[in-house]
């Protein structure tokens, strides 16, 4: 069966989504989804082990060898992302059951899990695929499922947030499709490896430049690159808590991966940096988003919205790493993909538990919770420390590489921005900590008890991961450095 692993990675959640829809029973849907997420994680780890020596696994669908048929190509880069996405799913799916009881009407639970599995399958498929059009198809699946998931939020504003995301996401999807279409007219192929080969002699073509522009803008919309980020805060703030957690930890990561894959895997580093000078745009946009998103996060009342803006800043860090265009920078980006998934996962899950017990997640709801929900708030604090980049947490590792990269480049202002933004992160995390630990609970809010174990266990698994990979970072940095060197290839 091991030869089928790449296909099973996506097909298992994809088809099980239809199966649970058929059975139409919420508990079965939940159990099947959790099983699917664990299976996916097992497959992803297996794949990562198989390609860790730098080899590439190819899987040709329908038995037609590429470029005639569709192929999945697994290498170290996307196996790494597959582990992130399915790992987060494997932790959050078990968490979801309790959490949605409080937020989504029981009649919609089956649909929720169907959409969740479709979303997972789409994200995994976008990551694993080696075909540019297949990427678009799976993007559509995951996007449609995401719109559905966001609209299930208890907050009525989730409907308009989902609609806004639908419009922006569809425009992004159309741009990606246009880019892929232009590439096809130029080369007559859709397979990424084949594209990369045939693009080589076309460097000066304006069609190629237009294709690059469309793809970057399209993916930029999906990953909420400033100034295309307007959909993100509303979507994350109003979606059901566990959906916010899942999306924040996975969806933008896959979009960043897609940007890397197209930039380096299709167009090539020489074209992206040498001809399009994408680094200038990325660095300037990233700096603006890091600074402004952090400042806006500081002004938010709702903690969920605050974390959403903080996510924008973190996306800025990842783009900054790509923009710095050296091995340390890309290593930082790749590490941050993994590390940000861990820390944002913890923070959003902690919020989900607060929501589960208190029915809200504003600053007011959190006041005085330090004593009433000690484990929940402790998880939040660890996540917050990691977000700031305190040593012994994962956040430190990626910030370290990012600062290293900016110093290597000699771009001191960039270093300064990273440090200032970290200070701002200290302030907005401190605001929550202060409210939770040093304020009395308002008299009109009921006292609450600690969240149930079924919620605490997944959260603390993530907390443990935050600390473990912060202390023992050799595995992740090893992979990230390897991949960064491969991606940059001959450049520098």
């Amino acid at each position, binding site marked *: 069966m091991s030869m089928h692993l790449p296909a099973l990675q996506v097909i298992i959640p994809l088809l099980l989504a239809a199966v649970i829809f058929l059975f139409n029973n919420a508990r079965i849907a939940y159990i099947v989804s959790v099983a699917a997420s664990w299976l996916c994680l097992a497959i992803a780890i297996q794949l990562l082990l198989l390609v860790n020596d730098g080899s590439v696994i190819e899987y040709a669908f329908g038995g037609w060898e590429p*470029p005639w048929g569709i192929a999945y190509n697994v290498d170290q880069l996307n196996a790494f992302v597959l582990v992130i996405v399915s790992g987060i799913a494997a932790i959050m799916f078990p968490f979801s059951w309790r959490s949605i009881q409080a937020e989504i009407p029981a009649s*919609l639970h089956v649909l929720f899990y169907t959409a969740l599995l479709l979303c997972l399958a789409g994200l995994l498929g976008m990551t694993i695929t080696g075909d540019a059009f297949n990427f678009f198809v799976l993007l559509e699946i995951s996007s449609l499922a995401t719109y559905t998931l966001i609209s299930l939020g208890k907050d009525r504003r989730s409907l308009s947030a989902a609609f806004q995301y639908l419009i922006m996401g569809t425009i992004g999807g159309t741009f990606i499709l246009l880019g892929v279409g232009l590439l096809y007219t130029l080369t007559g192929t859709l397979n990424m490896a084949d594209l990369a080969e045939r693009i080589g002699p076309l460097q000066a073509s304006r069609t190629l430049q*237009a294709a690059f522009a469309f793809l970057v803008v399209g993916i930029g919309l999906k990953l909420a690159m400033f100034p295309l980020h307007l959909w993100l805060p509303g979507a994350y703030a109003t979606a059901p808590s566990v959906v916010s957690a899942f999306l924040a930890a996975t969806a933008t990561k896959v979009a960043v991966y897609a940007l890397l894959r197209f930039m380096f895997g299709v167009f090539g580093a020489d074209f992206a940096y040498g001809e399009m000078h994408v680094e200038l745009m990325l660095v300037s946009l990233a700096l603006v988003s890091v600074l402004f998103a952090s400042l806006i996060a500081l002004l938010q009342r709702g903690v969920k919205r605050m974390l959403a803006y903080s996510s924008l800043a973190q996306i800025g860090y990842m783009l900054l790493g790509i923009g710095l265009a050296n091995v340390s920078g890309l290593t930082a980006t790749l590490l941050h993909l993994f590390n940000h998934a861990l820390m944002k996962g913890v923070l959003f899950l902690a919020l989900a538990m607060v929501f589960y017990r208190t029915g809200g997640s504003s600053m007011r709801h959190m006041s005085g919770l330090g004593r009433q929900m000690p484990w929940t708030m402790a998880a939040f604090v660890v996540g917050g420390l990691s977000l700031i980049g305190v040593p012994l947490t994962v956040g430190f590792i990626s910030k370290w590489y990012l600062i290293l990269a900016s110093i290597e480049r000699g771009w001191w202002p960039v270093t300064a921005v990273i440090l200032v933004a970290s200070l701002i992160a200290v302030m907005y995390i401190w605001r929550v900590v202060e409210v939770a630990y040093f304020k009395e609970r308002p008299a009109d809010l009921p006292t609450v008890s600690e969240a149930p174990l079924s919620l605490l266990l997944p959260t603390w698994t993530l907390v443990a991961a935050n600390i473990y990979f912060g202390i023992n970072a050799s595995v992740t940095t090893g992979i990230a450095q390897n991949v960064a060197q491969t991606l940059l290839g001959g450049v520098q």
Partner: protein
Amino acid sequence: MLAATAIAVIRQHSLFAIVMLFGIYSLLSASIFVVLDAVDVAFTEAAVGAGISTMLMLGTLVITGHHERTPKHGPVLPLVVVMLTGAVLVWGTLDMPPFGAADNPVHQHVAPRYIEDSPQEVGIPNMVTSVLASYRAYDTMGEVIVVFAALVGVLALIGIREQKSPRPVSTTDDKPPRPVLQVMAKLLIPYIMIFALYVQFHGEYGPGGGFQAGVIFASAIILYVLTFGLDDAYALVAPSVLRPLAALGVLLYGGTGVVTMLMGGTFLNYSVLADDPVQGQLYGIIAIEFGVGLTVATVMMLIFYAFISRGEKAA
């Protein structure tokens, strides 16, 4: 004409007229596709763009009302964005390989094998179907799942009201009986259905296939809903019957893939389904096309039911 229609859509304020103009727009695009010799694409555009999506938009209008509200923001920013996109597109296409030239990369690389070898490898004369259902079958499965995901979204957002309309007055009182329409519909529906089945099973030889067939089949039922009312339609095909069928279509497609896997091929490699690879391809294509048709038809009906049942409640 296409441009004129598009401008008319923008100038128009009545949503009803806009929907109609969209229908015209789709039909015009379909004729352009015919001129470009892309008959299968034209067929899909006519059935989906001009047919079913117009119906669905009309269904939405029943819920929302006919007039647009004045927009909150000015048109300047969108205009700039659109102009910029258009400019990049034009700028990019100036350098493009000349249209229709035989030595274009598109005609040189992948396509020759599709054209020259597909009759022997896949064994069916319609090479568009060969590409969709065999060479790139996995993408087509993805598209079917997109349709399925759309259904999940609609059901999650508005759902279908299964119980008959709660109004005490019987429906015939406030609506005039429509004997002419009903007789005409009864005459037409069987032919539409037969045509759908023809499109379904003839897709290997002529233009057509599961997508188009599913849409046409659904439109027969929609015609029935429109002329006889929702309650009668529920008696004919209840949503509770359609719901599992939509998932079964997806599973039929995916299941075919799983079977090919179990028989030793890669996912969706139909050649292993029979001793003769070409015969295997044929079995596989028939199975997955049926899955496509089933899902598309049931999803379209369900989405239409969802809109209409909402509309009846609002009325």
